[in-house]
């Protein structure tokens, strides 16, 4: 265990007022007020920075910013810590200053541009040494001056191995984290996804699952199952359930095998504290507990695992005016404190509001890997996307080829690229093996030995490691065909196990891509207002999003009414209003509303809840219901909205019902504030999800909604508070 420097002992210069950075660009002067704006403008243009008003408005401005940044010394960056919205140095920034000061002093007088050149000229050991002396802001500044070749060349010089049961990140290796996520944490499905991934030679970094239900009981049960899978297969690896660090500490307390401790991190204290519910103290406690009492105590050199990603600080509105690349680098500066076993980012996970297309996602990933490795982290990568961005599978695959060249320690293994719980798309075991073959990489040595013994890998006549006879056969870990079939029955989106070389066979790929295509189409389809009006007498309203692109790129617009609609809607007597909007799937609306709304209106009438004339909004988001409740003076708004499509075609037609309760009664507001800890709580929500033919059929959903609305009005509460009252 390495010692954790007390925060108070980390020296950070006092913040200074923002200074203006100016430069002449041919015939005119370009100025940036403060380092934050300069750093923002110097980056490639990315959606999140554009929305935050930080991206340069033109290439000329960007290049001017880069020129100014190139001329600043490392000492200048050291002397000007970026501050939070109150002008203070937050705890994340402070931890970033916990650096190898000797290493910094050797380069402090260099400009950022000179340092970039030095890193390109230097050998790996020198690059690695200097990296330990840099803060996140310095690494971000360097990244902004690098093109694609620079980012790859410097990153690939650095080797950041880490060791638990397996040794990751040594030159010539490429590992993977097996991610057997399941929509309901069904242990049968989880087990099959583990068997499948292991049979494909994945999982040497970790078998790590994101739980759908973050309770101590559930997380412990999943941990025990993963432990069982590990023992049953004999695979040399480690396990983790990626729940909140506090949940994992409680699991460890109860004796569950928390072999590696996970936490999501962000690059500002505000995001960590208010959104992720973590502080430096909590992270320190997690680290110390694992060092002293973790099951791999004495075996593993490292045991912490962090996940990060550009843009989370911005989407929560807690980025302190700092651009996405820099907050990401600050996150790495925080992660470095705990000498982690694994770090990976999931840049691309959030959506088009942070990274609009493949280009933005690929560049961001290359920057992240460069910064992480430079700062001293064992970086794995998870270039990924959601259906509502313009990122495609091909774009993501290009990212993996480039990142592998740059020396990623590991990738994710999400079976057939489709995360069954988080409705996003990541790398697969097939991708990992393809990249190993393209780049001449092998799994971690301990895992390779196991794979050779099992025939998952073998050696060809030249002694080279190649896929073995049992590669890709998950049945090898099942005791019977019946067991395999039972596991399979609980595994969604398993389109087949046939392979062609390291790839899924064409038939499997076609099935998967067709399902994904349906999902993409559902997002980009436009709401068919006339068709819907034939099912109920809808009145049409507009949101502030004028186009589909604006709607997908800026979630906030779909949460607000247009000026005309605001004008049109005035207080009504109806206690309950019904609102339908496309959200992220117009197809979900088209497929469910014809059976749902007529039955819903029957039910509300039948139960004497007399709703207003139903409303229909194009380009709506969940919180639009709040504006409707306020304008129409309604107590309850039933908001039927299309959900973000995942990988399965049927589930792409899934609708949710958000039942909003407006806390207009002072007593209810007091109770809600007390229950939630949010003194200004104005609304509560009950959500009924999974409404589609193969899930909760729309007609049945209507009756469920009517019953729930009755309970909300009777108890003057919704959400968890209502459920607590009903118990």
């Amino acid at each position: 265990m390495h010692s954790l420097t007390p925060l108070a002992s980390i020296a950070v210069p006092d913040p200074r007022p923002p200074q203006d950075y100016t430069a002449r660009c041919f015939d005119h002067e370009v100025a940036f007020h403060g380092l934050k704006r300069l750093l923002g403008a110097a980056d490639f243009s990315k959606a999140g920075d554009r929305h935050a008003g930080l991206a340069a408005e033109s290439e000329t401005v960007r290049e001017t910013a880069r020129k100014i940044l190139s001329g600043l010394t490392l000492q200048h960056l050291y002397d000007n810590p970026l501050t939070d919205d109150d002008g203070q140095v937050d705890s994340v920034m402070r931890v970033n200053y916990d650096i190898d000061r000797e290493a910094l002093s050797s380069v402090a007088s260099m400009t950022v541009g000179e340092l970039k050149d030095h890193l390109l000229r230097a050998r790996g050991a020198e690059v690695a040494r200097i990296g330990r002396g840099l803060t996140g802001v310095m690494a971000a500044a360097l990244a902004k001056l690098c093109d694609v070749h620079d980012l790859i060349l410097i990153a690939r010089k650095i080797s950041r191995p880490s060791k638990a049961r397996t040794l990751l990140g040594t030159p010539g290796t490429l590992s993977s984290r097996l991610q057997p996520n399941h929509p309901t944490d069904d242990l049968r499905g989880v087990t099959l996804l583990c068997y499948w991934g292991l049979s494909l030679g994945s999982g040497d970094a970790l078998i790590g699952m994101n739980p759908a239900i973050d309770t101590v009981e559930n997380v412990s049960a999943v941990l025990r199952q993963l432990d069982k899978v590990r023992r049953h297969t004999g695979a040399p690896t480690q396990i983790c359930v990626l729940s909140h660090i506090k949940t994992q500490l409680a699991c460890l307390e109860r004796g569950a095998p928390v072999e590696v401790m996970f936490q999501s991190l962000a690059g500002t204290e505000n995001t960590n504290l208010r959104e992720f519910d973590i502080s430096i103290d909590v992270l320190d406690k997690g680290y110390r507990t694992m060092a002293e009492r973790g099951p791999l105590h004495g075996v593993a050199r490292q045991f912490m695992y962090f996940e990060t990603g550009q843009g989370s600080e911005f989407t929560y509105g807690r980025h302190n005016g700092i651009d996405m690349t820099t907050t990401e680098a600050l996150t790495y500066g925080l992660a470095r404190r705990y000498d982690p076993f694994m770090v990976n980012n999931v840049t691309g996970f959030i959506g088009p509001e942070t990274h609009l297309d493949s280009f933005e996602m690929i560049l961001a990933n290359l920057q992240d890997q460069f910064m992480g490795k430079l700062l001293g982290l064992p970086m794995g990568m998870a270039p990924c996307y959601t259906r509502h961005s313009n990122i495609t599978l091909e774009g993501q695959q290009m990212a993996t080829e480039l990142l592998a060249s740059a020396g990623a320690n590991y990738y994710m293994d999400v079976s057939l690229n489709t995360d069954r719980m988080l409705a996003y798309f990541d790398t697969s075991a097939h991708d990992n093996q393809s990249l190993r073959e393209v780049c001449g990489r092998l799994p971690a040595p301990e895992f390779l030995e196991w794979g050779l013994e099992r025939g998952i890998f073998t050696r060809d006549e030249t002694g080279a490691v190649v896929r073995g006879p049992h590669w890709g056969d998950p049945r090898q870990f099942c005791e019977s065909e019946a067991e395999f079939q039972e596991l399979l029955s609980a595994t969604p989106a398993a389109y087949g196990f046939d392979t062609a070389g390291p790839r899924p066979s064409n038939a499997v790929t076609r099935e998967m891509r067709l399902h994904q295509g349906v999902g993409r189409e559902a997002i980009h389809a436009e709401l068919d207002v006339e068709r819907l009006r034939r099912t109920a007498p809808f009145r049409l309203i507009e949101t502030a999003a004028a186009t589909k692109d604006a709607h997908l790129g800026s979630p906030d617009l779909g949460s607000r009414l247009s000026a005309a609609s605001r004008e049109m809607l005035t207080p009504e007597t109806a206690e309950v209003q019904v609102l339908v909007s496309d959200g992220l799937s117009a197809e979900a609306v088209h497929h469910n509303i014809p059976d749902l709304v007529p039955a819903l209106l029957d039910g509300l009438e039948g139960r004497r809840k007399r709703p207003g004339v139903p409303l229909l909004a194009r380009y709506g988001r969940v919180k639009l219901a709040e504006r409707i409740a306020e304008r129409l003076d309604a107590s309850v708004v039933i908001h039927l909205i299309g959900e973000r499509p995942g990988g399965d075609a049927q589930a792409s037609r899934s609708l949710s019902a958000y039942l909003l309760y407006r806390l207009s009664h002072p007593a209810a507001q007091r109770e809600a504030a007390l229950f939630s800890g949010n003194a200004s709580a104005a609304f509560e929500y009950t959500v009924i999800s999974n409404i589609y033919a193969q899930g909760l059929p729309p007609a049945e959903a209507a009756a469920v909604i009517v019953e729930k609305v009755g309970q909300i009005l009777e108890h003057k509460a919704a959400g968890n508070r209502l459920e607590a009252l009903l118990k």
Partner: protein
Amino acid sequence: MPDEVTLIGLDFGTTTSSAVVASARLTRSAATGRRDLTEVHERYRSDMVFTPLDENGRLDESRVAALLDGWLAAGAVDSAQVFGGGALLTGMTAQRENAAAIVRLVRERLGDALIATADDPRLESWLAFMGSCATLSRNHPRQPILNLDIGGGTTNFALGRDGQVQRTGCFYIGARHVRVVPGTYEIAALTKYAEAVLQYLKIDREVGDVLAPGEVDAMIDHSLALLEAAATGATQTFEHPVAQQHVQVPFVLAPSESDAAITFSGGVGELIYASIDGHPWPATTQFGDLGIDLARRIVESKVFAPHIRRLQPDSAGRATVYGLLRHTTEISGSTLFLPDSKILPLADLPIFGSWYRDSTEADLTSLIDLVRHSPRGGCVQVRLGTSDAAALRQFGTRLADALDQAAFPTDLPLVLLVRENLGKILGSYVTRWGALPLNLIVVDEVAERDAQFVQIGTPHSQVVPVSFYGLNEPGDARCTH
């Protein structure tokens, strides 16, 4: 987190009785949100014990009570956790007074969670198939499978496809019609069926005599011939009066089913598969009957031998008790129409028939009339074949009108069972969204079964256990259209 529940299977036969206790989870399906019983894990299996019957065939209640208490304690059963399962009473234990006593003793300990069924040969055949072949059959969905569950007194036939039983039958052919002194062929007891066969074969033997080797062969040959005939559709064999006497429930194999794969379960089935797995045969008449001899002849049979290595069922020896454990109890959907859960459990509710989307007013009225004259209320299966909202509204409104017109008693339980996930919406339309006072329950996502009775248990994690018994053969059901 999936909820843990307990399942129990109790098997009371003429000779032996046993219990199995299992833990299972109520897991929500990923794709549909439906709950299902998963990870069924046997946590206690009792020894086979002799059923405490006196020489007159009367049950010794205090010894049965002690047996039950011992099993429940050894299986660490908390009665509140028991979700379902069953108790199967066969032979002497199924006789009226004995059955009543066992049912009472079980209910005193476990409430209505368990369904007790007596002398229900079609259910036993169904259970044996489900207990041994359900997974196998689902894994070979196009292959018809005929399972022969050969026990002490009867052989239960069940033909199924894709995990669904299509036809059942039962014959008085089993290991213990001739009981012998273990290690010898000295006759210890004979059933009336064995006596008839001895007479037919002109073998003059009685209790205390020793059967000669040729005589044993002749007895076994006779049993084997009947089993082969039934399994190959040779119905003319059963025209003979002695053969006829062995038929409890006829089983007829259609010519199109001649390619059925044959599997075996029950005690004799277990011996068959143990032998082909390389285990030596037990010593001569070790169990005091002719079961080992019958198993040996089946393994050598030209009809059966090719099938034995083809498809092998699970848990052959305990197929029925596994079937009881795993398949007696079905799980409803989680959005059922149940305004007042306090009326559950409902035991022994007669199923009066089925309604369809196009049932006439007369069809609706005639079943309503049957239910209203049943003191316990009743159940009707609703087979709509659609979840279209307009069709539901139309059917629900028509049924509401019919119930209203019939002045259906407001407190009499009326249970509707539907296959689709639409319990709450159908119930809402039938009660006119609460305006029509009825004691109505709509249980959804339950496959239709041609049974005479149903039992609805108490809710657990928003679902209820549903158990059927008194199975009819398809076509027997008193359905109205």
